[in-house]
């Protein structure tokens, strides 16, 4: 799961170092467009639906947070 | 510092800055509202706010005055000098911008209750019948609280919290102040009237030129004004109140209606005007100067609403019954309930005086040297000179002297049908040798303007080796004076120097040197006038020296004004042209034009020039 997620992320935003960044939203590294792209890719590739309500900083600041969100929504 | 301290410091700073502004405004006091501490400049402050500044001024100076004249700004043109003379009093002029009757009443009351008042004159004009109490917010119109009875706190705070730039401007203007009046100090603080030194030093001549210079009289602004019953009632009530107060205190009370321009009168409905004036007569008799031939003559006015000082002089002469001054016949009527109706019927028909009656065209001829070798713009041969004089005589011209012109303008005397003024500049011996006999022979007269320092000089320029054309001496001058043909007048004592021959800095004409201070200049010119006068009066029996021809024709307002202060009321330039004298306007005698006559000017040319006058 994590590898697939990493692949999506790096494909969407190749310039970002997702391994180390932990303040993707707070520091403005991930923009709204990026988020939308990521979400639709996640829908497409992982078949997990993330809704608007989920788009809060706490869910997207680091890869681990995104992963947690995806896994929560999968069920 | 901690935050609490910061807050306190913050507000303290604001208070500190505010106090600074208040202190600055109080000290500089551009409107003359605060008692005389700090920068005192009464004429400036009166210009900013005459109501308040004059009251402040009187606090310190009221003992110098015992009579007052109150009204709107045109009231200034009743000259203080004449007021003092005719009323044997010491007047202060309390004019205020756009004074309404309430202002007048309050001011009158304040003066009467606080100071010694022997005479009180108020000026009423038709705007008083339009608006009784005209409220204006401008800081230039606020009345002192002691006079108006308004809350002093509101009044003073307006001036304490003034935009400090206004105070700053006063300081800036102080640096630029000159002797002659400028836009920021139009008042004469000692009299309370407008300082018209500059305007009264302007040449006034023919109507065409005048209207070109002051087109307002051609395009007189059209305004709608209607007389309001409330205003009339208020005005009459106030006047009655002042009248009663004066009666109580034994003060001589007088109401005048100052001259206004005819177009201004046309703003109003005639019946309403007549009604107002008639009702005024039943409250108190008054002098009406507002409707007469004077109203139809633009030259009697500085501008659309202010008549000239010379007209004010005429008005005062009328009141005092002084016959020695020229006054147009229909000017000034003492209106009482008995003659009101008749007066207004006549006044309705006021028309301008006939140009023939109150103006005269006078050409002036200017000669210099007479010599057989006549080949210069300043030289003429004796033969041609005689021919010219003979031709003038034959054509019916009468030579007149400056004193005759003065009598015409100021005293209502008559001039001959075809007057001409003959003048000679510099005082050359040739005048005595050639011109004098010829003039005597033909029964003409002339004025010779001598340069005091060269009189009697036949050889050299001052104490140099340079030769000059000989000048006649005082003995010779006396001879000419005795015959009644010649008058000796001023061409300055020593302000027509030849630069090349002077060791120091030369005064080639009467103008101030650019780097010379006004004070030094006026002192120098005054000294020169005194020297010249002394020289002529001590050495001849000439009765008075009051006519001057400008060296080289150069003149400006400062020079003219200084000369007037020194008693020179007739002056000549070298600008060619004819002169139009207007009865009652002394300014038509200053800066007069003259035709330069020399060998190249033929007899026909001379005749053409002098006859163009009547054309």
């Amino acid at each position, binding site marked *: 799961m994590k590898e697939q997620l990493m692949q999506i992320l790096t494909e969407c935003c190749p*310039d970002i170092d997702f391994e180390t960044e932990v303040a993707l939203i707070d520091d*403005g590294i991930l*923009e*709204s*467009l990026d*988020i*939308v*792209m990521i*979400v*639709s*890719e996640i*829908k*497409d590739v992982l078949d997990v639906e*993330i*809704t*608007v*309500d989920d*788009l809060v900083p706490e869910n997207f600041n680091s890869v681990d947070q995104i992963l947690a969100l995806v896994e929560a929504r999968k069920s | *510092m*901690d*935050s*609490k301290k*910061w*807050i306190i*410091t*913050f507000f303290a*700073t*604001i208070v500190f*800055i505010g106090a600074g502004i208040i202190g600055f405004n109080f000290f500089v006091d551009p409107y003359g509202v605060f008692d005389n501490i700090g920068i005192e400049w009464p004429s400036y402050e009166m210009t900013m706010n005459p109501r308040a500044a004059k009251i402040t001024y009187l606090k310190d100076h009221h003992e110098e005055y015992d009579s007052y004249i109150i009204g709107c700004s045109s009231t200034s043109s009743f000259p203080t000098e004449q007021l003092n003379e005719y009323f044997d009093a010491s007047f202060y002029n309390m004019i205020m911008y756009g004074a309404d009757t309430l202002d007048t009443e309050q001011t009158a009351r304040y003066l009467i209750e606080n100071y010694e008042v022997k005479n009180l004159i108020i000026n009423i004009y038709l705007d008083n019948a339009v608006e009784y109490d005209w409220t204006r917010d401008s800081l230039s119109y606020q009345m002192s609280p002691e006079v108006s009875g308004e809350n002093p706190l509101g009044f003073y705070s307006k001036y304490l919290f003034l*935009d*400090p*730039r206004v105070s700053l401007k006063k300081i800036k203007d102080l640096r630029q102040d000159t002797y002659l009046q400028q836009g920021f100090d139009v008042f004469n603080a000692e009299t309370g009237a407008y300082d018209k030194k500059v305007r009264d030093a302007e040449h006034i001549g023919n109507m065409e030129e005048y209207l070109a210079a002051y087109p307002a009289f051609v395009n007189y602004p059209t305004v709608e004004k209607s007389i309001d019953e409330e205003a009339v009632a208020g005005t009459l009530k106030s006047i009655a109140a002042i009248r009663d107060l004066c009666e109580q205190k034994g003060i001589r009370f007088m109401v005048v209606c100052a001259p206004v321009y005819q177009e201004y009168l046309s703003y109003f409905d005639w019946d309403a005007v007549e009604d107002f004036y008639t009702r005024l007569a039943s409250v108190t008799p008054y002098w009406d100067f507002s409707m007469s031939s004077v109203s139809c003559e633009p030259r009697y006015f500085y501008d659309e609403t202010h008549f000239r000082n010379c007209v004010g002089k005429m008005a005062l002469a009328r009141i005092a019954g002084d016959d020695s001054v020229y006054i147009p016949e229909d000017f000034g009527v003492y209106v009482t309930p008995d003659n009101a109706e008749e007066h207004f019927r006549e006044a309705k028909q006021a028309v301008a005086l006939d140009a023939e009656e109150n103006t005269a065209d006078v050409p002036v001829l200017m000669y210099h040297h007479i010599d057989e070798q006549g080949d210069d713009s300043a030289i003429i041969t004796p033969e041609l000179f005689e021919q010219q004089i003979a031709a003038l005589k034959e054509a019916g011209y009468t030579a007149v002297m400056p004193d005759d012109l003065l009598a015409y303008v100021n005293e209502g005397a008559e001039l001959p049908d075809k007057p001409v003024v003959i003048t000679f500049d510099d005082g050359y011996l040739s005048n005595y040798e050639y011109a004098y006999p010829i003039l005597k022979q033909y029964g003409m007269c002339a004025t010779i303007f001598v340069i005091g320092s060269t009189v009697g000089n036949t050889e050299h320029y001052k104490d140099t080796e340079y030769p000059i054309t000989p000048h006649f001496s005082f003995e010779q001058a006396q001879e000419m004076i005795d015959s009644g043909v010649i008058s000796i007048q001023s061409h300055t004592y020593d302000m027509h120097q030849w630069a090349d021959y002077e060791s120091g800095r030369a005064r080639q004409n009467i103008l101030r040197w650019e780097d010379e201070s006004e004070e030094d200049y006026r002192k120098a010119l005054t000294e020169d006038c005194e020297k010249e006068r002394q020289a002529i009066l001590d050495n001849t029996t000439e009765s008075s020296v009051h006519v001057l021809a400008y060296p080289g024709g150069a003149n400006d307002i400062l020079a003219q004004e200084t000369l007037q202060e020194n008693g020179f009321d007739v002056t000549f330039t070298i600008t060619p042209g004819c002169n139009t004298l207007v009865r009652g306007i002394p300014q038509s005698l200053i800066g007069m034009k003259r035709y330069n006559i020399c060998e190249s000017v033929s007899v026909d040319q001379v005749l053409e020039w002098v006859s163009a006058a009547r054309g």
Partner: protein
Amino acid sequence: MAFTSLSFLILVAITVVVYYVFPKKLQWAVLLAASLAFYCIGGGKTVLYVFYTATTVYAAGLLLGYFNGKKDQVPKEQRKAVMEQYKKYRQLVVLFTCLANFVLLYILKYWNFTAELFQPLVDRFFHGAQIPLSSLLLPLGVSFFMFQSVGYVIDVYRGKYPPERNYLKLLLYVCFFPQMVQGPISRFHELAPQLYAQRKLDYTNLKYGIQLAMWGYFKKIVIADRAAVVVNTVMDNPWSYSGSMIAFGVLFYCIQLYGDFSGGIDITRGVARLFGIDLAENFQRPLFSVSLADFWRRWHITLGAWMRDYLFYPLALSKPFGKLGKITRKKIGGKLGKIIPTSLATFIIYFVIGIWHGANCRYIAFGFWNGSIITMSLLLEGKYSAIKKKLHINDKAAWFRAFQIMRTCFIVFLGRYITRAPRFLTAIWMIKETFLHPVLPNLWDGTILTLGLGIMDYVVILLSVMVMLAAEWYQEKHGVIREALEKQGFLVQWLAILIPLLVLLCFGILRSDTISSEFIYKQF
């Protein structure tokens, strides 16, 4: 009531005193009273619109809370189903609230414009029929408080927090007075707790508030109002000026706009700070933006954020857009295919931002301008990266960043032509003129002295802008200035009070007879 009026200062002063004197429990009521007073004095009867919005969102909030609460009544497993069941109702509530407010907004703000637009069409078919025009006054800050309130409803719908049960407290949230003129658009969970909090008098709040407000007044009165003179002169009659003069005027418009808007926001935040309330920032050194999209994240931040959270995300992640994405991915494929639905959503957002500014052709054009450029750059991003690789351009290099900043400035600058020209078509002409007939000598031959400002004024503007930029540069590098100031001695700190006051007095207040204080964003 203008920020620069004496009455506003008096209102704030009185409110501050009463606020700290009142019993703490009712401090929020003081703020409410002040807000209503502010609104009534400034807008009279239009305060009714505030009540209208407050009432609709209050009711909606309670309803949504009720529906949301349904899920707590059943055991965990059934929650999702229950939520699904009530989803329709909840969506209806939100929809209805949005309609109730935005339709009103449309009538107040855009009706006359569209009526005039369609009049010719009506004339064609129904001769003589006149579409009735509304003569309703635009209430102060309607574009701000409506959005702020609708945001609250949507947040409640999303279950972010329970609805506010106190009508008056919610009313305060809707009409908190410092925000009414030009924002910022706050979020309930950020602002409300601060509004209702109980506070002791803390001099630090007063100090920071005063400092911030003074900075705002400086930008507004000394810079913006001054620059406005030039702008108005040129824009009133652009045809009598050469291209370079027009550009000069637009440049000064940029200065005026930034000074006025950011200065106004500083005053707003400063005043709020007096009560210990920290409002969201609306500007973050927009001059340093590297792209137009980046610009809109630094300029009018709260508007962009609102659009992102309540319009962009819902739109871009909605089913229709998802379907569109599937199609484009198949048909066009590759990166481009994936981006198309997002790009479309982006375009729509910027278009809406454009017309949010006003009912006028030029704002539609403005929307198009922003939308197209950002969308284009999105779609072309792939190609753009390829070019950069080929030319071996390093993204992070300083010079490249400088290039990006200048490019962005230029694009923003062009956009200002559109919003400030007297008419839309004139803007096109003005841009043409700038490039075709600049007549550059006009810039130094004295023409700029005929625009209503003297040399002294230009010096003041130049120095002030430099001070402003220096301050922002410092903030970018080192953070908050006032903390550094606090470490200085008494003299320095006192000068930091005296000099701004004197500057405001000499170059601000005492000039106000020749400059008018217009708040550009006031009627939004």
